[in-house]
C-alpha cells in the first residue's frame, strides 16, 4: 500500500490515554480498594540459603485486626512459566535473602506490618552459592529436586544433580575446521551484573478467592493477564476458567511484570482470610529484593577470523546467574541459542547457554530479554577483533553482518525482507560522523583539556522470544453511532499499543481515529486471548489480528448492504463511515444503519449486531533442535545499530554522552511520536545499564542496595545532550507479513547501548572495559591503572 493512500498509519497521533494520565484520573491497582479489603505484609528471609527450622506465629495471631497468617505449609504449590521451580512461599528452606517465609493479611497495612514483626522464624544457615563458578562446581545444590520439576521438555534441559536449570546449545557447521581456517583467534570474557526493572508502580495484586468455590478474582499490575490466569490455575490445581484476571492501567513493566508473580500467593492469603479480598503492594525494597531482576551474566567468547576480517568460527559460553529461581529465566537463556552471537554471519559455531541457580534474588524477563547482556559481550568482542586485525570496526561489522542469503546461527535463512543490519549501521555511522578511530596525536591533544571524546558503534538484533505457537486475537464491536470498540488481550503499559491498534482499526475501517476506541481494563472474562504482553511482538501480531478483524467487520457490513443495495458484496467499497457501490456511489448505507442490523422502512430487519474478530498465530516457528539449536525461532527480526559520541573526564571518570544515534530497520513507522518514545526511553534505560545500574551483594549474598539510595536509575540530569532516532522504512527490506510492513521495536533501543558506549570509551582511552556498569569509579580507576602501567 502506498503511503499517500494511508490515512492513519504513519500519523503521529497523541496517545489515547494521555488525558486520563495527566489529570490523575487513570486508576492503577495501587489505587484500588474493594469492600472489606485486607492488606498483606510479608516476612522475608534474612538468609541467602537456610533451612527453616520453625515458624512461630502465635504472637502475631493475637494482634487485633489480623485476619490470616500463612506460611509454606499452607501453600504446598509451585509456580513457573517455563520451569515450575518456585514455591509460592519458602517451604523447608529459603534460597535467597528476601524470599517470603510468611505473610499476614490484616485490616490495614500498619496492623499487618505490626503482626509481621511478631512472627519468629528459626533458621539453620546453609552454605551459600554466590556466583556461577561456585554453582558450576555443584557441591552445594540450590534445588535438590531439580530433575523432578515440570518444564517444557525438549526446549529446556535441566541437568540432574547440578545447579544448571537449563543447558541450551547451538552447533552449526564444523567448529574445529573453522578455527583451523582462522589466521587469528581472540578470546575474551565479559560480564554484567543483575539489574532491576524499576517500574514506577511496584508490583501489586488484589486477590479475592470465593470461599464456596474454586473461583478466584485477581486485579493485578501484571503485563500478562492470560498468563496469570493459566499459571495461577495450574499452580493451585483449579480450572483456568475459574480464574478471572483484570489489569487496569499499570505503572510500567519492562518484563518484570510478565509471567506471574504475587498473584497465586495473594490468592492463598485471601483463601485463608475466608475469601476477603487481600491486597499486597510491594514496597520499593521488595521490588528490588523480593521480586525478580535481570540476571547477571558472564560471556566467554572465542572467535577465529581470517586476515581479511571474515569470521570463520566462534565458541561461546553465556552463563546466566539466574539466582534462586529460573522459572522465566531459562527462556532468557534460550534466546542465546539463536541470537547469542549478534547479527553476524558465523559459518561455524558452538554456543552454550547455561541458566544457573545461585542463592541470590532470582531473575526474569527484562526489556531486551538477554540481548543487552549477550550483545555487551559480543559487540565489545567484535570491536576488539577489529582492533587486533587493524581494521576499522565499521568495516569489520559491515563485512560480517547478516545479509540476504546468509543463515543465522540457528540456521534461519535471511531474506531481503528480514531487514538490514548494515543499513542501520551506515545510518548511525553517518549521523555521528564516524571516520575511524581517533589517532594517538588527537588523543594526546585532547588529554590536555582533561576530557577526551570518543565514538563507538554497535549492532543489535532481536526477535520475539516466545513459545512457537503463540497466538493473539482481537474483537471489534460497532455501536449504534458507528463508533467501534476494539478489545485486545494485550496490556498498554505506556508503549502505546492501544493507540496503534486504534490507528490500524481506523485505517482499515476508514473512519476517524475519534470513532475508534481500544477498550482499557483488560479482563480475561471479556477480552480475547493474548499470550503475554512481551517480546516487542504486539504491533506485529496484534496489528495483524486487528487488521483481520476490521476486514471481517467490513465484509459483514457489505454482505448486509449488498442485500439492501441489490448488488454483489464485491461491488461495494467503504469510506467515511459508509458502504457504497463502487460505480453508482450514491447507492450507499452508513455504517451506523448496519451496526445493529439494517431496518427497512416497513420494519423488516436483516443482519444483526456487527461484531468481528481477528486472530493471529505465529507462523512457521519451530522449537530449536535439542542438540544443535537449529530451527526457526524468529517470527520477526528487528535489526538496529547505535552510534555514540561521548566525552570522558579522565580525572573523575565521568562519562558524558553527547549524542546517541539509534537506527532500526522497523519496516514501517505506524506512529512516530510513540515509536520515538520507545527509542528515547529504551536508550536511556540502556544508558542506565551502561553507566549506573547494578546489584551489589555482601559476602553472605545479601542485597546491599535494595533502595533508590544506592540503586540509582538515570535522572533528567543524566541523559545525553541528544538522541537521534533513525527509522529505516525501505519497502525493499520491510516486513512483508507485518502490518503495513511494520516490525516490533519496544525492546531494541535498549540493546547494545552499553556496547556502543564501551566501544566509544575504547576509542577515547584505548582502554578495554569488560564489566558493567561503566561508572565514574570503574572508569577513573581503569585510567589510573593504565597510566601506572605505562
Amino acid at each position: 500500500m502506498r503511503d499517500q493512500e494511508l490515512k492513519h498509519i504513519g500519523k503521529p497521533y497523541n496517545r489515547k490515554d494521555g488525558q486520563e494520565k495527566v489529570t490523575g484520573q487513570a486508576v492503577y491497582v495501587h489505587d484500588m480498594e474493594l469492600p472489606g479489603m485486607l492488606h498483606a505484609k510479608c516476612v522475608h528471609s534474612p538468609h541467602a540459603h537456610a533451612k527453616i527450622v520453625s515458624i512461630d506465629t502465635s504472637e502475631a495471631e493475637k494482634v487485633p485486626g489480623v485476619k490470616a497468617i500463612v506460611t509454606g505449609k499452607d501453600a504446598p504449590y509451585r509456580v513457573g512459566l517455563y520451569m515450575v521451580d518456585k514455591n509460592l512461599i519458602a517451604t523447608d528452606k529459603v534460597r535467597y535473602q528476601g524470599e517470603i517465609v510468611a505473610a499476614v493479611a490484616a485490616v490495614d497495612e500498619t496492623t499487618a506490618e505490626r503482626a509481621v514483626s511478631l512472627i519468629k522464624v528459626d533458621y539453620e544457615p546453609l552454605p551459600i552459592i554466590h556466583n556461577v563458578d561456585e554453582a558450576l562446581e555443584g557441591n552445594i545444590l540450590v534445588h535438590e529436586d531439580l530433575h523432578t520439576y515440570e518444564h517444557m521438555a525438549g526446549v529446556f534441559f535441566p541437568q540432574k544433580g547440578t545447579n544448571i536449570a537449563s543447558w541450551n546449545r547451538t552447533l552449526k557447521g564444523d567448529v574445529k575446521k573453522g578455527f583451523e581456517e582462522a589466521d587469528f583467534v581472540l578470546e575474551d570474557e565479559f560480564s554484567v551484573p543483575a539489574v532491576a526493572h524499576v517500574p514506577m508502580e511496584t508490583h501489586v495484586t488484589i486477590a479475592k478467592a470465593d470461599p464456596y468455590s474454586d473461583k478466584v478474582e485477581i486485579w493485578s499490575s501484571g503485563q500478562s493477564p492470560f498468563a496469570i490466569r493459566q499459571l495461577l490455575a495450574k499452580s493451585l490445581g483449579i480450572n483456568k476458567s475459574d480464574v478471572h484476571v483484570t489489569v487496569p492501567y499499570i505503572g510500567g513493566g519492562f518484563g518484570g511484570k510478565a509471567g506471574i508473580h504475587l498473584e497465586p500467593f495473594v490468592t492463598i492469603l485471601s483463601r485463608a482470610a475466608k475469601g476477603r479480598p487481600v491486597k499486597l503492594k510491594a514496597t520499593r525494597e521488595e521490588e528490588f529484593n523480593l521480586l525478580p531482576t535481570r540476571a547477571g551474566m558472564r560471556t566467554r567468547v572465542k572467535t577465529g577470523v581470517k586476515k581479511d576480517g571474515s569470521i570463520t568460527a566462534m565458541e561461546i559460553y553465556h552463563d546466566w546467574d539466574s539466582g534462586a529461581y529460573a522459572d522465566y529465566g531459562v527462556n532468557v537463556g534460550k534466546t542465546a541459542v539463536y541470537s547469542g552471537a549478534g547479527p553476524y554471519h558465523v559459518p561455524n559455531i558452538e554456543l552454550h547457554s547455561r541458566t544457573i541457580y545461585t542463592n541470590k534474588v532470582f531473575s526474569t524477563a527484562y526489556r531486551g530479554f538477554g540481548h543487552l547482556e549477550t550483545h555487551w559481550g559480543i559487540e565489545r568482542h567484535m570491536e576488539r577483533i577489529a582492533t587486533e586485525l587493524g581494521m576499522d570496526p565499521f568495516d569489520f561489522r559491515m563485512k560480517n553482518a547478516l545479509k540476504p542469503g546468509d543463515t543465522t546461527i540457528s540456521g534461519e535463512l535471511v531474506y531481503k525482507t528480514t531487514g538490514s543490519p548494515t543499513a542501520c549501521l551506515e545510518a548511525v555511522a553517518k549521523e555521528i560522523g564516524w571516520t575511524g578511530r581517533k589517532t594517538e596525536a588527537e588523543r594526546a591533544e585532547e588529554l590536555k583539556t582533561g576530557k577526551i571524546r570518543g565514538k563507538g558503534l554497535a549492532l543489535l538484533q532481536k526477535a520475539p522470544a516466545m513459545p512457537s505457537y503463540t497466538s493473539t486475537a482481537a474483537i471489534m464491536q460497532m455501536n449504534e453511532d458507528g463508533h467501534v470498540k476494539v478489545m485486545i488481550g494485550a496490556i498498554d503499559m505506556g508503549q502505546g499499543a492501544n493507540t496503534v491498534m486504534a490507528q490500524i482499526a481506523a485505517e482499515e475501517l476508514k473512519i476517524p481515529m475519534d470513532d475508534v476506541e481500544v477498550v482499557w481494563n483488560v479482563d480475561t472474562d471479556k477480552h480475547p486471548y493474548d499470550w503475554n504482553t512481551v517480546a516487542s511482538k504486539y504491533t506485529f501480531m496484534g496489528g495483524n489480528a486487528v487488521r483481520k478483524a476490521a476486514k471481517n467487520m467490513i465484509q459483514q457490513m457489505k454482505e448486509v448492504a449488498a442485500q439492501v443495495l441489490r448488488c454483489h458484496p464485491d461491488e461495494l467499497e467503504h469510506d467515511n463511515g459508509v458502504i457504497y457501490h463502487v460505480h453508482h456511489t450514491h447507492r450507499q448505507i452508513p455504517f451506523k444503519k448496519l451496526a445493529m442490523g439494517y431496518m427497512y422502512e416497513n420494519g423488516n430487519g436483516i443482519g444483526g449486531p456487527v461484531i468481528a474478530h481477528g486472530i493471529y498465530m505465529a507462523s512457521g516457528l519451530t522449537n530449536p533442535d535439542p542438540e544443535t539449536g537449529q530451527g526457526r525461532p524468529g517470527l520477526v527480526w528487528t535489526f538496529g545499530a547505535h552510534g555514540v559520541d561521548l566525552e570522558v573526564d579522565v580525572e573523575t571518570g565521568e562519562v558524558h554522552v553527547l549524542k546517541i544515534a539509534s537506527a532500526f530497520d522497523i519496516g514501517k513507522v505506524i506512529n512516530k511520536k510513540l515509536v520515538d518514545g520507545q527509542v528515547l526511553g529504551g536508550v536511556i534505560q540502556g544508558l542506565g545499564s551502561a553507566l549506573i545500574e547494578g546489584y551489589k551483594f555482601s559476602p553472605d549474598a545479601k542485597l546491599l542496595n535494595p533502595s533508590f539510595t544506592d540503586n540509582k536509575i538515570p535522572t533528567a540530569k543524566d541523559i545525553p545532550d541528544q538522541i537521534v532516532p533513525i527509522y529505516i522504512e525501505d519497502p525493499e527490506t520491510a516486513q512483508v507479513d507485518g502490518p503495513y510492513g511494520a516490525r516490533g521495536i519496544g525492546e531494541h533501543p535498549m540493546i547494545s547501548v552499553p556496547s556502543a558506549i564501551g566501544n566509544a570509551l575504547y576509542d577515547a582511552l584505548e582502554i578495554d572495559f569488560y564489566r558493567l556498569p561503566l561508572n565514574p569509579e570503574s572508569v577513573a580507576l581503569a585510567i589510573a591503572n593504565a597510566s601506572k602501567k605505562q
Partner: protein
Amino acid sequence: MLSKFDYQRPKSLQEALTFLGEYPETKLLAGGTDLMVVLRRNMQIVDHVLDIKEIPETKRFEYKPGEGLFIGASVTVNQISESEPVKERYMALKQAADSLASYQLRNRATLVGNICNASPGADLASPLLVFDAVVHIATPQGNKEVPIQSFFTGVKRTVLNPGEIVIGVQLADSETEDHSVFLKQARIKGHDLGIAGITLRMTPSHKVSVAMSAVAPTPIRLVDLEKQISEKSLDDTLPEWLESEIKNHIKPISDIRSSADYRLHISGVLAKKGMKKLLEMGGK
C-alpha cells in the same frame, strides 16, 4: 511504620524544652527528610515527635555585617540556596546546598537537620567547617554554643544530649572578597549522596581552609593540611601538590557507594579542581 508516636508542635522554645524535659527520647522534626526514612524503615521506634518549625528562634535567617550569618534550624536548604548574602559571601554553602538531594527535598530539608543527622557524608558540613560555624543549642540549663569542629563525635553521633535542641548555626562573617568553592563527586549527575565532598575557602588575606565529607567517620576540617598550605606560595603548582598531599590527610573507607581507592583518587581530583578555581577567583 511500627512507631506509634504523638505529635507536638510547640510555639515557644520554653514549651519545647519543657516537653523534652519530660520525654527526653522525643525525636525532633524539622524538614523530616531523614526522620521519615528512619520511621518508615523502623530503624527506630519513636514514641514522641516534636515539630520545631513553629518555634520563632528556629526560623531566624539573617546576615549581619560583622556578626555573620545565622541559619535557624527550620531554614530549608532551598532558602539558603536562594539567599543573596549566601550567594555573595558563602558561595561554597550555596553550591553544597544545590548539590544536596533533589529540588523538592531541598524545599523541606534543613541545614541543621543535615548536620544533626551527622552522616559522614553530610553535604552541608564542609562549608560550615571552613566558615567556622558555631552551633547554637538550647538546653534545659540554658543556651550553649559548640564550634562545628567539636559538634560531630562519630558516625551519626554528635555532642547533643537528649532534651537539647539545636536552634541554629552561626557562620563567621565573610567578606565579599572571601572566596570559597564546594565540589562533590557522586555516582550519578542527578540527586545522589556524595562519594566525597570538599570545601576550600580563601580569605582576602589568602588564608586557605579545607574541609571534607565522606572520607572519615565525620566531616572533617583538614587543619594540618591547611598549615602546610599556609607555608606554600599560592601559585600554579599548588593544585597539583594538593592533589597528592591531601591523600595523606584522609583515611576513607570502602563501602557500597565507593571503594577507598576511588575515594582517595577523587579526593585528590576534587582538591586540585577546587584549588584551581579558588586561585582563579581569588587571584594569586
